[in-house]
């Protein structure tokens, strides 16, 4: 079955790369530009996996993960954190808030798809 992935990232470049990589892998891609936008998109969608950035305007990745995990409808969706931060405390914070896993930028499309497949049902 075609997997639907929601990507949340404020960088147009990264969004386009994610779209290219995921579409290539036969996945259905939804996109949002920040946490607030991400929640809006989730309002009408049920993706299989969410890939989110950390540093974003309006609502950052931490806030977004917290909000998704706190919602009844979406809390079971795996969330991968896509981040340039390899610093452990950031990763740790994301994990404590409920991130399912993480991918470090710059991402390798194959590894990204693997990670998504790993957490997707």
């Amino acid at each position, binding site marked *: 079955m075609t997997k*639907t992935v929601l990507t949340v990232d404020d960088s147009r470049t990264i969004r386009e790369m994610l779209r290219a990589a995921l579409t290539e892998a036969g996945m259905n891609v*939804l996109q949002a530009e920040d946490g607030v936008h991400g929640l809006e998109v989730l309002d009408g969608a049920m993706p299989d996996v969410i890939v989110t950035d950390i*540093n974003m*305007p309006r609502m950052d990745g931490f806030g977004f993960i917290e909000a998704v995990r706190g919602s009844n409808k979406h809390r*079971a969706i795996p969330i991968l954190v896509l981040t340039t931060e*390899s610093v452990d405390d950031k990763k740790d914070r994301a*994990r404590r808030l409920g991130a399912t896993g*993480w991918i470090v930028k710059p991402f390798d499309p194959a590894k990204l798809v693997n990670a998504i497949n790993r*957490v997707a049902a």
Partner: protein
Amino acid sequence: MAAIKQTFFQECEEQLAELETGLLAIESEEHDADTINAVFRAVHSIKGGAGAFGLEDLVRFAHTFETTLDLVRSGQIQPDAGLIKLMLRSSDILADLVRISRDGGEMDEGRVSQIHDELTRAAQPGAAAPAAPAPAAPAFAPLPAVEAAGDDDFVPITISFDDLLGGGDPAPEEQVFVVSFRPKPELYAKANDAIKLLREIRALGDADVACDISEVPLLTELDPEGAYLSWTIRLGSNVTEAQVREVFEFVEFDCDVSVTAEPRVDPNFEFVPAPAAETRDAAPVLTEEGPLIPESVLAKIAQVNAEPAKASPAAAGQAQPTQQAQTTIRVDLDRVDRLIDLVGELVINQSMLSQRVTEAGIARLSEVAVGLDDLEQLTREIQDSVMAIRAQPVRPIFQRMSRVVREVADMVGKSVRLVTEGENCEVDKTVIERLADPLTHMIRNAVDHGLEKPEDRVKAGKPEQGVVRMTAAHRSGRVIIEVSDDGAGINRARVKEIAVKRGVIEPGVQLSDSEIDDLIFAPGFSTASTVSDVSGRGVGMDVVKRSIQALGGRISISSKPGLGTTFTLSLPLTLAVLDGMVVTVAGQTLVVPLTAIVETLQPKGPEVHGLGERAKVIAIRGTFIPLIDVGYKLGYRYEEADPLNSVAIMVESENRAQSALMVDGIIGQQQVVIKSLETNYGQVFGVAAATILGDGRVAVILDVDAIVAGNRS
């Protein structure tokens, strides 16, 4: 990938603008927490994208910059004046690195490493600051080894992914791993799932999975969000232990997991069922299609699943993905140019139709004529809308100027503040692009020549810091850009002296103040003695003037001794069309740009006076204005026409002086499409461009300023 790279560079430009705006706001203390966050994000974003494209230099510098910004963001270091200056210079370097990554070229390594070092030093004082992470793009995060959960002092073991994924290394010998895996409730709360991990393990080789259900309580005591199952897996595979551990990368803290390797003795090893400790029932064996969990447990889970709170994504139903409405689109500029060209043709065609209708003697109120009026209205609206597509705020170029001010001020040792106004003023993209060089030159001039040295300013009773002001505003269909400084003003005696020395004017000529000021624009005025390292570069204000004129613009100067100098640019909003007055001169049809025209009149006998041998002036409202016969000037006739049989078009040239252009008659007012004469033929005196009229004939568009100036000399 190339398209995405283009997006990246576009985005970089935006991020750099954001960065600069933010830093300037911080400098002027008009910032809040969001500003520093935005600044941080801008650099962070550039770093992220640069990493994706393997732009190592850019990543390295952005990373160092980001580290410093992160300390500012978290309040560990305070952005004092010195640090802000350093950050602004860093943003300049970052902009250079972006440009070089895009266009190629050489970067001044010394400058980069100097700023790099300063940034690193700036990040030092905060002793509490976390050690800067490894610079350059991390190929992939070091993988922390799986440790006993709950152990907060775990030591990450660095394992390179390249090693994991084989590369050229020989495949490890097949061996057996015993994996014991006990998830905690947190694992499920994070949307991880034991079944997915087991699936991964099975993908690594021959797996024998045993589930321990001894912990499963009675249904009444079962917490639907609890974790009661654990597994023991015997995996026969030729992967490394690290690869097995990698499966648990995301869940290392949310489960108890151990991986032990048994060296394989017998190549035809057969699995021995795992001694399932504390197993209440016989451990079910996971086969390709077989159940992972005993049916009794499944039944329990099914019941639990019935509770709405535990609704799985699948159960909640697959909602149709919604498409987010897009507010902007990005279009290739070529397409817009093509559209503008087509609209230009439409305008020509419409005026041709209009002319034919008139020629055919159709009544003005006939349906055809009325329909044509509507068409004209529509054409104009289409044109305006198409022009609006290309319109862009002048902000980016204004922002670039703040950098110029900084650089020049540093170089000449002056303290300068750039004040900008009207950055949102919109102008055609082409006009903006072609403004960059003239503006840079004027700004350099303002800082280098316009402003006095700090000590002289103090002596003159002014604040030490000079102010350069740059404003943009729309005025009657044109954009007016002013560059002013609060310096000493033009030293007219000195200007005159230089002009005489350069042979620009004859010694002893009497000139008004504004005429002296205008000497600055004279070709040959700017030479060695006024050229400094900074503003000189062998280019004079005459070049600036020419490039502004090439844009269909005018430049003028005004100066007050001791108070400063102001350059005023008046520019068309677009380069594609202009409103013109179509006139006839010696049987030719010409177009006079409407923006230059003040009024038109029919000279009467008593108003026209001769002056000297040839020159004529016309008396209007108490002043005398020179009369210029356009036909004679352009060489259409050898004798000047009689002013009394001509129409005088009063025009205002760049220094606001008025002149009257004599033409034979006025046909009407019309919007014309500008076709560059220079591109298609070459530069001709007195001709700004050409256009195609409704009847298909080519008409030249007058360069009013050139004709007026030509009359003076």
